[in-house]
């Protein structure tokens, strides 16, 4: 398959994924009880105002008409406006995006900084007590439910010990504990992943050849082996974006951070369909985008893969 064909193929499938997400969410929202018009107008609104809103937002149209209208709007790149705040949904998401990105990036750095050396060293000293203890701790941490962990961290480290602020985003320091909560969930998994990859790589002939050149063990481990072992890890990291979304949602809500996660939760409590749709589509786009990015960077980070130049 030529690169062009592959690209078009990918693009089509991405569109199908996003479209299905939009349609599915639309139907789920339709099943929600409550009159959306009252959400917009307020419960005291007169019947005339309610009628006006029904007309303005096409709430009385048959479902396929409303779906068509919404999809048409999407095609024009318009995510609509919040029924509750009248703010454009895209704007709402974009203003929240920096917080979520900062949180995810900080968490990612935290766990990689720990997972990489841990994975490398437990591979080097395979079978040692250090390796076995790491395995147990890793399995433990990756089994923890994200909501519980975030709450526990908040309770013990912020509330009881006062080492961190309890909630809100007033400074970068406020992101540290939330990022830590998120990082703990992933560090175990990635430490073991890197361990497995390193063990495989360390058995390779080029590692022996590197030693034969006179490379120190440190250089062998952290330059020759790691560079190879991390290739699949980077791709898994990209695809893990989807897995991270859930954790990010919980962490943001527990720590009252103004990110996309809290926007999503608030929109559900507010019964605000455009924002609900917007955040769901955003997550979908994020996952699709991450998979694309993984595909593209894979060709770049592994010289053995020949990609469209």
């Amino acid at each position, binding site marked *: 398959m030529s690169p062009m064909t592959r690209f078009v193929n990918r693009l089509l499938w991405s569109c199908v994924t996003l479209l299905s997400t939009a349609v599915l969410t639309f139907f789920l929202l339709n099943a929600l009880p*409550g009159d959306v018009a009252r959400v917009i107008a*307020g419960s005291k609104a007169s019947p005339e105002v309610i009628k006006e809103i029904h007309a303005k937002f096409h709430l009385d149209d048959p479902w396929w008409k409303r779906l068509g209208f919404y999809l048409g709007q999407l095609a024009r790149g318009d995510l609509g406006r919040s029924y509750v705040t*009248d703010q454009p949904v895209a704007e709402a998401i974009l203003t929240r995006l920096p917080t979520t990105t900062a949180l995810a990036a900080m968490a990612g750095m935290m766990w990689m900084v720990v997972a990489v050396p841990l994975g490398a060293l437990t591979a080097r000293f395979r079978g040692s007590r250090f390796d076995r203890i790491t395995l147990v701790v890793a399995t433990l941490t990756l089994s923890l439910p994200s909501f519980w962990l975030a709450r526990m961290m908040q309770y013990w480290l912020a509330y009881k010990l006062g080492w961190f602020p309890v*909630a809100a985003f007033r400074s970068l320091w406020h992101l540290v504990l939330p990022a830590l909560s998120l990082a703990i969930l992933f560090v175990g998994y990635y430490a073991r992943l890197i361990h497995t990859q390193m063990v495989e790589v360390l058995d390779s002939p080029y590692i022996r050849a590197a030693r034969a050149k006179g490379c120190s063990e440190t250089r062998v481990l952290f330059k020759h082996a790691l560079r190879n072992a991390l290739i699949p890890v980077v791709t898994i990291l990209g695809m893990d974006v989807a897995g991270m979304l859930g954790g990010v949602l919980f962490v943001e*809500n527990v720590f*009252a951070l103004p990110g996309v996660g809290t926007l999503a939760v608030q929109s559900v*409590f507010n019964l605000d369909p455009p924002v609900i749709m917007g955040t769901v589509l955003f997550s979908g786009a994020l996952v699709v985008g991450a998979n694309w990015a993984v595909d593209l960077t894979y060709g770049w980070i592994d010289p053995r893969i020949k990609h469209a130049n």
Partner: protein
Amino acid sequence: MLPLLVLATALLSAAALPEPANSRSGGILRLARLFDPATLDAAKVELTEDVLLVPLLNQTLLDVRDGTNLVPNAASEWSTSPDKRIYHFRLRPGVRFSNGREVVAADYVYALERMLDPATACGMASYLKGIRGASGFTARLTNHVAGLSAPSRETLNIEMERPDPTFGFILTSQGVAVPQEEVARLGPQFSIRPVGAGPYLVREWKRGVRLRLARNPHYRGVEPQHLDGVDILIGGDETTHLMMFERGELDIANITFAGIPRPSFHRLSRDRRWRDLIESEPLFESDFITLNTEVPPLTNVLVRRAINHAINRDKWEHVPDGYATHGEGVIPRIMPGFNPALRGYTFDPGKARQLLSEAGLPTPVRTVLWHPLDGLSRDEAQGVQEDLKQVGIELTLKPVTFAQLETAMQIRHQVPMGLTGWSAAIPDPVDILGQQFDGRAVTNAATWNQAFYQNPEVDRLLDEAAPEVDLKRRFGIYQRAEEIIVRDAPLAFLGHRNMYGLRQRRLKGALMDSLWTYRFDRVWFEP
């Protein structure tokens, strides 16, 4: 007695009110709430939590102290005609909007007309319908409300259709001036960046994130500006907020109607750090279950009385713990007009069963109770369900959001039983009885008479009481009406809530208020 007191206070207005010690000490008041305000426009505000912001952004004509004392505010003096039909206000000079313009009497006329204008969809507009010409204006038959006039820049006259001794209280929340030119300029943005004459103005509102208020540089008012600003975090949950408070990241533990979260209450009341800071305030409030008199089996008064006898209301209202005060009827103890001699329904399951068998309905009697989702409501609903089961009533519980409950209950033949309550806007029975039990409000339109209760005798008494100026006679009529209502049992009477508040030690001032719950404009930081 009340009007005399009011008049005396009005005359005393010229004398300086006692200045709180160390006012203008500054500092930012840090609060937290779960959701964004629905609106900051005083004309559109409905939710209790949003109402709390009104005194920060606006300066009302009159204010209430200690729950029942009307005092001048933006009006430096006021008086009424002897028959309590005409209200006359003299405006305090030098009061300005946050845009710098001086407030004039015409601004009040504009604001009140705006509230009555159906296009504004003001939820509290019904409280203004007593003004002469209001109904005609609302029906768009006239361009102005005849009863509102501004003879000069600093005089405002409000003429009621009928005598109304309580209208002054309405003006403590709705007597707010609004600059017409700003409403025209901002349009719907006025809900987000309102322009008022209050001590603070909106500095920034990041939806779902944070609401920040800063000092209004043009403010002139009775209550000094104690703070530099207010910072309201939006989001999180009750647990997080409480943890933030205990760690000193918030200045008041909880600003919702619920007060301090109950699960933490015992711990906090034993904690040396906090226990002497916990304060309690009874509210002008009534908890009850609406019994829809138009939906069988609740059409039968014996069933309704049986329900009242079956519920151990002191238990589910947590009266022994102090969360509520025992209630026999509708009017709470602290409200003027409360009848200490009123006897309602005792907790008597045996009597309940007897009444049910008298009603002659096939057992088990089945019906549905709608209730809000939150834990406290759920627990209470489940308690009621247990109690009713004991007497042969099978109750299905239907948890819904608060918004859904409110909407549904106003629709005819929709909700059989609804766990709800009423917060009085006025410390007088006219609100708590008049809005809910007037049979003429039962039409197919949305109504506050959520039991769809119709008793012409009650209607007659309500009509008679409302304009009654003599307080003794007035309250006597209301009490008679209440007795009939209690006998007819369109509600399962539960009790009257008390509120518990908790603040940081260095926050001083009269924070809590029976009518407003919290008044943030009255607090300051100890330097």
